[in-house]
């Protein structure tokens, strides 16, 4: 499903080269549940953004679903993001002036899905995530847990193959965090590939496969 070959990513800051990822080799199969842990600045988010096609490697090859996606242009990248990838962020990233329902609808709108189908899908998602009576609420009228549920519903609205979650529990208390994780885990049962970045070893330990990163490299892998 996801295959990285000697992928590196470096940034130029002033006249200095900062290497965020160094020669990463990584294979993730469809339906895998992978957690990425490691100290701050070790390159976890950079790796996730690369996989999510928000970024491009400085060198190396990235293959997704067998196709080479290393050098796609903007429109092609956007198409892949739209069809195959869902993002969940630490800070929820809901559009404050839109209702919960419309936030969930956003990827469908951008993809040009017809109105009638959108309605059906959004209603099912609201129902699924227990948000039906919150459909017309704006994000500032929702709790943190509800916001993240809206974000997850939004990430799954296009039925992506890969779900990328960058510290999705970072802004939540423990109990709510665990709820959110279990929602994400339910998705893996439907053959969604889940890649979860977390600082919490207890949460990361639940994944079938755990990657540990230090200084831009994957230093160890554990499987459970």
């Amino acid at each position, binding site marked *: 499903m996801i295959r990285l070959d000697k992928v590196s990513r470096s940034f130029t800051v002033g006249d200095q080269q900062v290497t965020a990822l160094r020669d990463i080799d990584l294979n993730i199969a469809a339906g895998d549940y992978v957690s990425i842990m490691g100290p701050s600045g070790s390159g976890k988010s950079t790796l996730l953004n690369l996989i999510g096609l928000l970024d491009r490697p400085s060198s190396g090859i990235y293959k997704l679903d067998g196709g080479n996606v290393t050098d796609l242009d*903007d*429109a092609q990248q956007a198409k892949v993001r739209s069809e195959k990838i869902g993002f969940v962020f630490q800070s929820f990233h809901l559009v404050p002036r839109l209702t919960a329902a419309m936030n969930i609808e*956003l990827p469908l*709108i951008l993809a040009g899905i017809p*109105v009638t189908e959108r309605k059906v899908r959004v209603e099912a998602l609201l129902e699924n995530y227990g948000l039906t009576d919150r459909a017309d609420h704006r994000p500032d009228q929702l709790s943190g847990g509800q916001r993240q549920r809206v974000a997850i519903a939004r990430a799954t609205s296009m039925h992506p193959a890969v779900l990328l979650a960058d510290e999705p529990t970072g802004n939540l208390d423990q109990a709510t965090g665990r709820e959110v994780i279990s929602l994400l885990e339910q998705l893996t049962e439907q053959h969604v590939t889940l890649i979860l970045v977390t600082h919490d070893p207890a949460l990361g330990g639940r994944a079938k496969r755990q990657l540990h990163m230090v200084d831009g490299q994957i230093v160890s892998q554990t499987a459970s």
Partner: protein
Amino acid sequence: MLFPDLIRLTASSFLAYRMRSLLTGSGIAIGITAVILLTSIGEGLHQFVLSEFSQFGTNLIAIQPGKTQTQGGNVGIFGSSRPLSIEDAQALRHLPNIEHVNPSMQGNAEVRANGKTRRTTVYGAGHDFTKTFTLNVQSGSFLPDDDPTQARAFVVLGSKVRQELYAGQNPLGSYLSVGGQRYRVVGVMEPKGQILGFDMDDTVFIPAARALELFNRPGLMEIQVNYQAGADLDGVVRAITALLKERHGREDFTLIPQEKALEVLGSVLDVITFAVGALGGISLLVGGVGILTIMTMAVSERTAEIGLLRALGAREKQVLMLFLGEAILLSALGGLAGLLLGIGIAQGLHALIPALPVHTPWLFAVLAEFVAISIGLAAGVLPARRAARLDPVEALRTE
């Protein structure tokens, strides 16, 4: 992205920042209002004012006592200048190219008939008054061609005076008291309405010499001269000036040719038109800069949102469209408000002054809206391109 969704999304940010959007749109609105007013009543106003001033014909010259000094005002009737006399008017009749001459004097007095009293304008005129001003008598005739210094006590009624004092009766031949003196009614004028605030219908016309006596004035207020169409105006002016100078011994009078007055009026109207046009142009410019500013602000404020949209699968072009759409929505709504305001003011003016022609051509309205939208487009391009070119990862990291 479907078009209705583009509208829905852009409208959502418009509504979220209502106050800001209204202020920004108002610049465009004022500009379009000015443009619409110019096209709706600019030409009509021109025609209206000019026709108000020229309905007596353009071959008129007014002669007033006193000399207009270049730097001072008019020395006027009470100055040291000699008054214009009825004899002056008589003398002018014999000049070449002169068709009609009318001595004129105006004041207010009480008129009484049938036991009814009314305070009206009393206008002292000559026999040629109707010909000078191309006015018509409805019944009877105008004042006869008497020796102007010994004119008989005849009066011609304006239609309103006739209506008020002789409702349903024939006034011809009856007697009317003007300022306490008895006059015989010889004619009634056709209704004419107001001309530059002077109600021609609420007026009685008596011989100029008798008006001078009635108001106890030494000289006429004005002599109007009607010259032949096609005659050389400068030649006519020179001839009149020479004649009156000879009679008065010096140039203590002022000639005001209607044609010159119309020229001045025309250029005043041109200046007003230009000023309104300039105001409109400046407002549109300010509106455009306002949209540029507000969209630049919006892009900075909503950087994280832009990153999110990209993560959700938005192409650069879609982000561009969304922000461009907002700029255009602002200017289009501003333009629409301007259209409504402009047409509203124009129609309001028309209701107040029915004689003022008001016409907003559809093409101009569409064109004005098109201009507004173009301004939004031009002002929105830069910020929208900046939004589209943001690096999605960077954008997502800003809070």
